[in-house]
């Protein structure tokens, strides 16, 4: 990777929400670079991991404010870019798979048309070409009868299928960077493994960069290359994924300790003791 411009560079990212009573800091000083690799951001709800993904896409909702020393995509400065230019990047170059298919798909449009629409928009393609590509994409995400599923509405598909539909929609534009926000937490273990295989293939074959947002530490450790552990909007620890189980920070150890394990039965699960000093300094 040496000598190449990283896909994404972020330095000292802060996301703040101005509320009438106080300023809520969702992300406090996050820095990372992403190459053609699988980078995981882990943490509990409220740790700021989803906001990090949204900040990259310029999707932080009002009244949120995004500040950073630098935020670049393939060397292009994202901070100085117009909203219109950011919008053109979105979907075509950087896309994001949202957590919940129930809220992220258009309920009054068939899933196939939604996928085809994404392709038409990003690739300036005709209707029938988009339809063919959408059907192929549904097959790629292991949907058994793509032609039937194409004409279903979001409420007619299961959670796992909805998740795969969203992944298909995000991948059809062939982005350089995919931000996946808990893409597999609604899926069964067997389907989960298949979806991870698809993502893995895209990273190795197409050189895509993947930011994998999750609270599932074991999964991340097995699947990703590097891990950033976040708590309260701050980075607690950053380490190679394979060494996650050897994480040193008390928070990482605490998260690992409260997981039940089939092969190591315990009478009582350890619970996480939070420490306010984790949010100090830096």
């Amino acid at each position, binding site marked *: 990777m040496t000598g190449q411009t990283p896909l994404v560079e972020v330095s000292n990212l802060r996301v703040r929400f101005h509320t009438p009573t106080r300023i809520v800091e969702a992300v406090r000083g996050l820095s990372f670079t992403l190459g053609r690799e699988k980078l995981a951001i882990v943490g*509990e*709800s409220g740790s700021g991991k989803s906001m990090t993904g949204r900040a990259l896409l310029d999707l932080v909702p009002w009244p949120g404010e995004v500040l950073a020393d630098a935020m670049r995509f393939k060397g292009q400065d994202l901070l100085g870019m117009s909203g219109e230019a950011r919008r053109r990047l979105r979907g075509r170059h950087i896309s994001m798979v949202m957590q919940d298919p129930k809220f992220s798909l258009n309920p009054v449009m068939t899933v196939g048309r939604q996928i085809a629409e994404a392709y038409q928009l990003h690739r300036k393609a005709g209707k029938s070409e988009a339809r063919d590509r959408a059907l192929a994409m549904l097959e790629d995400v292991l949907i058994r009868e793509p032609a039937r599923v194409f004409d279903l509405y979001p409420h007619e598909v*299961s*959670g*796992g299928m909805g998740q795969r539909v969203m992944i298909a929609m995000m991948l059809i534009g062939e982005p350089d960077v995919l931000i996946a926000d808990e893409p597999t937490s609604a899926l*069964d*273990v*067997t*389907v989960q*493994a298949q979806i991870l295989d698809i993502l893995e293939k895209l990273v190795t074959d197409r050189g895509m960069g993947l930011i994998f947002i999750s*609270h*599932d*530490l*074991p*999964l991340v*450790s*097995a699947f990703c290359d590097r891990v950033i552990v976040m708590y309260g909007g701050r980075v607690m620890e950053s380490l190679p994924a394979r060494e*996650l*189980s*050897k994480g040193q920070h008390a928070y990482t150890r*605490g*998260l*690992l*300790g*409260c*997981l*039940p*394990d*089939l*092969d*190591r*039965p*315990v009478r*009582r*699960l*350890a*619970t*996480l003791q939070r420490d306010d000093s984790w949010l100090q300094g830096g």
Partner: protein
Amino acid sequence: MGPGSIIVRNLNVRFGEAHVLKDVSFMVGSGESFGLVGESGSGKSTVLRVLSGLNRNWEGVVEVDGMPLPQRPEKAFFRSVQMVFQDPFASLHPRMTIDAILAEPLAIHGLDQPDRRIERALAEVGLDGGFRFRFPHQLSGGQRQRVAIARALILEPRILLLDEPTSALDVSIQAEVLNLLQDLKLRLGLTMLLVSHNLAVVGHMCSRVAVMKLGRVVEEADIDSLRKQGGQDAYTQELIAASRRVALASA
């Protein structure tokens, strides 16, 4: 079998054309924790819905709390069997205070001293009285799930049905809720039927487990023997392998 037990023999459920439960049989002893695992669509939740009287369209023999389950159970039945649902964001009424949520089952069943009962139920799940007059949106996910458990316990049931009670929660909160359920089970002598797709969670909570696939129970086993010998059925082995694959190697 006595109070608190569950017997299911050749349970069949059809929704129109779809045959979703096919000859499901299992038994849960009084005070036992029993797990149901399987992928989504395998019928786990449907079993719970039948046992809780929410699904009235079934065939077979079902005994709950030592008595045959009628197709249309009477009100008293619902006191003995209570359910906790997966998503604490969906299962609590957003316009009702915690107090009103907990008072409703008491009013329905005509129980006395609602004040005292509500206070005790909240204390049992580790929430102080300050939560009583808040709304669900003012609570975190873990606190809401505690309220949902309090709502189930306030009727003093003998059987608690848990439908993926922690899959919507962070792992640290999951540990707290699972510990709470263990404590309650020991203290109150509850029978628990836990549905989950997470074999590690079931392994932690239960002594026996039934593995479901496509509406059938493909295997019923002791957790200990699953741990040591693996499963008999290919699908059980797949589940165990998947659970081990994601377990951290050297935690």
